Each structure stands twice: as structure tokens, then as C-alpha cells.
């Protein structure tokens, strides 16, 4: 399959500027990475409503809390590795616990950061964010969905974590395809096996489905853009109708999207399941494709997992 590759960050910047025009209560914070996260677009359009906190993520999050407590809708951005782990206590105490209107939109998540290496490749941010009460967790699949997700979360008053990548990603949705936080999207119908992906791995699931089709296997593909709250209905229905599930994520398999799906299925409907994702190890420097291959995040890995669950399916 050939994809059009586009930047999620660019759409984040665009959505922020639009929001800034539409609403006076939108305030944006960054921690010295605004040209990378693209909050710089907002900064140049609305300099008085942009605050660069310098290399001080903890300070950024608590400052965001004060702004949100004063009625602002706050977007706070930096790289995902710094925007979650480095200020975890601040997010816990001052965002999630008081349920403040703060959207942490973190870029450069996952292993596709590439050359920067393990220090910058956060593969545990979904785990950190999904265990926090009151926190929603979203992984937009592509540039179109990033735009829609940012516009959507701005309209609620809750804490939200939005994870986007550094690299351009395959565009798998249309500008006008619907986006609903409460509903995962079915990208392809099929009744033999379900492939559930998030982020860049959705495109790999679609490629895997094409490959499986060559062997007469009809795979359903779900874009699970919202990890929390989890669309349990669509997951259980897919498990019931296809009898086998594979998840695929650019995140540690220890406690990411696949784990959320596994927990849902173990309590609701047992089917053979396999999680494709980064094993319990740190990444390293390399090119995106090389890293995806080294850490088991290819279309072939998904196909192999699908054959495995199909074998176990009664």
C-alpha cells in the first residue's frame, strides 16, 4: 500500500491557531521546544497568550494549573518524554487530581524519534497517563485526526493527554471522516481476526490486513485512537465476531494500549490474543524503519501475530 505521509505536529499548530482565533480562553505553554511541537505557530499569532516556561516542565504544568483554575483552557506541550515522566508528580497532583482543564499535547513520542536514542524515545507514556484517574488518553492516528482531536478536546473541560509523533505518518483518514472520543473507528471490516492499532501502527494493521487477504483471511481493523476512556463495546463486539485479536502499538507492551485491550477482554470475552509492540527494553539510535524492524513493529510482525492467534482460535 502506498501512503501519503504527513505531519501531525503541523496540524496541531494549525488547530491551535484556529482555536486561538475562535476563543479568548485558549492559552498555550511550552518548555523551550515550541518550534518542534509547533506551538510556535500559536505563539506568533497570539504572543500575549503564549508562555514559554523554558526548560522547566514541572513549572510549566503547575503554571498551567493556575491558569486553568482561573478559567483558561490550557494547552501545554513539549516532547512526550519530558511532558510525562519529568513532571509526573505535577500532572498527578495539579492536573488529574483537581481535574483541571489542561491538555497535554506531547510530540516526539515513541521509538520513531529515531536518532536521539533511548533517552528521548518514551515508550511508557501511555502507561503513565492511563493509570491517572480523570485523565483521558488519545493517540491520533494521522495528521487529519490530530487536527480533529485537538479541536475536540478543546471543547471539554477535562484533563487530556494527546500523544503525537515526530516523524510524518501515513494518512489513513479523510479530512471529513468522523471523530468521536467515545468511539473507536472501524477502518476495515472482516470476520476472521481483529487487528487493533493506535497511532502509526494503524497503517501497519491495514497493510497486514491486505497481506492476510491474499491468504483468504478477512481481518477487521480498528483504529483505537482513544485509549481512555476505552471503547469496550467495539472491542468486545470485535472479539465476539472474529474470535481472535491482535493489538499493535508503538509503545511498550507492558502497560500500553494492548494491555488495556487485554484487560477489557479478559473480563468480558476471552479470545486468543497477541500484543505487537516494543518488548520490555529501552530503544536506541537508528532510522525509523530500522528501529521499527528491530523492535518488532512491522507489518510482518502483525501478520505473524495474526496467524498465531488464528491457530489458537477454535
Amino acid at each position, binding site marked *: 500500500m502506498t501512503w501519503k505521509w504527513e505531519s501531525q505536529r503541523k496540524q496541531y499548530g494549525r488547530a491551535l491557531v484556529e482555536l486561538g482565533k475562535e476563543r479568548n480562553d485558549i492559552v498555550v505553554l511550552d518548555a523551550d521546544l515550541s518550534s518542534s511541537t509547533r506551538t510556535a505557530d500559536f505563539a506568533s499569532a497570539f504572543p500575549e*497568550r503564549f*508562555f514559554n516556561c523554558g526548560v522547566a516542565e*514541572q513549572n510549566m504544568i503547575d503554571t498551567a494549573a493556575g491558569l486553568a*483554575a482561573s478559567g*483558561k483552557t490550557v494547552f501545554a506541550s513539549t516532547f512526550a518524554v519530558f511532558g510525562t515522566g519529568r513532571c509526573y508528580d505535577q500532572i498527578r*497532583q495539579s492536573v488529574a487530581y483537581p*481535574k483541571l482543564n489542561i491538555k497535554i499535547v506531547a510530540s516526539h513520542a515513541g521509538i520513531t524519534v529515531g536518532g536521539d536514542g533511548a533517552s528521548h524515545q518514551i515508550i511508557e507514556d501511555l502507561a503513565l497517563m492511563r493509570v491517572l484517574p480523570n485523565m483521558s488518553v488519545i493517540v491520533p492516528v494521522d495528521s487529519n485526526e490530530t487536527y480533529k482531536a485537538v479541536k475536540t478536546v478543546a471543547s471539554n473541560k477535562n484533563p487530556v493527554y494527546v500523544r503525537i509523533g515526530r516523524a510524518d505518518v501515513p494518512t489513513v483518514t479523510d479530512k471529513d471522516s468522523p471523530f468521536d472520543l467515545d468511539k473507536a473507528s472501524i477502518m476495515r471490516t472482516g470476520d476472521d481476526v481483529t487487528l487493533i492499532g493506535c497511532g502509526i501502527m494503524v497503517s501497519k494493521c491495514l497493510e497486514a490486513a491486505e497481506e492476510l487477504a491474499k491468504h483468504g483471511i478477512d481481518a477487521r481493523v480498528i483504529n483505537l485512537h482513544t485509549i481512555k476512556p476505552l471503547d469496550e463495546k467495539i472491542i468486545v463486539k470485535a472479539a465476539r465476531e472474529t474470535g481472535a485479536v491482535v493489538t499493535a502499538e508503538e509503545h511498550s507492551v507492558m502497560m500500553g494500549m494492548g494491555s488495556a485491550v487485554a484487560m477489557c477482554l479478559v473480563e468480558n470475552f476471552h479470545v486468543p490474543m497477541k500484543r505487537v509492540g516494543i518488548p520490555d527494553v529501552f530503544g536506541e539510535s537508528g532510522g525509523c524503519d530500522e528501529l521499527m524492524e528491530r523492535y518488532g513493529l512491522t507489518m510482518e510482525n502483525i501478520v505473524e501475530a495474526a496467524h498465531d492467534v488464528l491457530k489458537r482460535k477454535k
Partner: protein
Amino acid sequence: MEIYDGEFISELESIARRVRAHAVKMIYQAGSGHPGGSLSAVDILVALYFHLMKHDPKRPDWPERDRFVLSKGHGAPALYAVLAEAGYFPVDELWSLRKMGSRLQGHPCMRKTPGVEMSTGSLGHGLAAGNGMALAAKLDRKLYRIFVICGDGEMDVGETWEAAMLASHHKLDNVTLYIDRNKLQLDGPTEKIMSLEPLGDKWKAFGWHVIEINGHSLKEIIKATNEARSIKGRPTAIICHTIKGKGVSYMEGSLHFHGKAPSDEEYRQAMEELGVSEE
């Protein structure tokens, strides 16, 4: 001037005495809590809520109100006692501190307690949160002011200094920080655990206007706060020299009462010393 009026000050002093008694009783009844750091901050809180701050207990969400953040969240008993005395909720509710179902959590929770502006407890967050409120005030062209109390133990926290930089970078002259300089942190004297001096010079170097006062003198607290109000273009830090456990002889300067409730006998003595035997 009103602030030097003897009768007015002694009125505030008697409120402070009541607040101290409430705080000790709350901790005694809860069986746990932090008397030392609650009692050292009482006079600052009383000056704020009974004279300096523009607020309305009947309308805790009044948009024009001044904001207060207790960064040293473990001083919650003192804050709750002041809020109750001011009329945010009944004094009788104070005895529910730390109990199941209570609106008065062990550390302040803005979603549970009327009058609490920010959830705190994990140290070093409060000044940054106060800065956020101050930025919002500037954006909205509002005149409300932000008052923050930090413990001196919080001077160990890196984020305190990140926030110090941000406040002076953005010229947040609507922020007033009180540093409850009781010179003791959980493990011992601050200068032994992690030396802070010269503390005033540090804040000056960060671009703040600095005032040092006796943090138990209501007159000095009021005077310094009014001075802070007149300073334009930079925030003010008021280093309040205080005594941990102030008002109860055996708690004063005692490490033991950083985070421990008094025994029955100790409680009786405290009430006697605070002159409220009926408590």
C-alpha cells in the same frame, strides 16, 4: 492609621489564638497531622483572611477575589481553621479533618473544600500555580492579587526556583510570596539538612523584591504586604521569621511536632496555654 490601631491588632491576635486552638484540636481529634508547620503560619493566614485579602466567604467563586495558595499543604489545619472562622463553612466541620467522607482532606483539595483555590500537598508546586493565576489576572486585566505561603523546606525544591524565575521574568507584581521561615524541616534544622542562607539574597538575585519580618507580628505582616502592593514590575517575597509550633510551649521549636498529634495530656496543656479551656 488603622493597621497600627492597638484594638484592631488585638482583635486579629485573638482570632489567631482561636485558630491555633482549632488547629491543635483538629489534629488531636484526627490523631495525625502537622501541628508545627500549621502553627507557624497562623498569623500570616489570619492577616490575609481577616484584613489583607479581598474575598467573600459567601461567594467562594467570586471572579474578582484575591487568590490564596497554601503551597505547604501540610499546614492545612491552619488554613481550614481560618476558612471556618471567616465563614466558608461551619467551625463544627473542622473536627472532621482527615476522617472518611470529610470535605477536609489531610492536605488541601480544591474540589472538596470551599475556599481552597489549589490542591496541594506534594511540596514545591504552589508558587508555580500562583504564577498561573497571576498570568490569568494580567491576561484578563483583573486587579486581584495572588498570595502564596511556602514552607522553608520547599526552598529545597527545584521547581520553587523555576517558578521564582518565571514570576520575575513576567514581572508578576500581583504575586506576594510568604516564606514561613521556621527553620525546621522534617529531618532537622534547614541549615543542617540543606542550607538555605543567604535566603534573601537568593530571592533578590532571582529578581524579587525581598522583605524580612517577624512572621508572628500581625503589624509587620500587614505593613510588608502593603509594601508589596506598592512594588511595581516585580514580585515580592516576604521572609517571615517564625517559630515552628508557635503558641504551644512544648511544640515551639520542636522537631517532634512536625507531623505528630498531641497526646491527651499534651492537648489539655495546649488548650490551657492558648487560653481556650472550653475547646
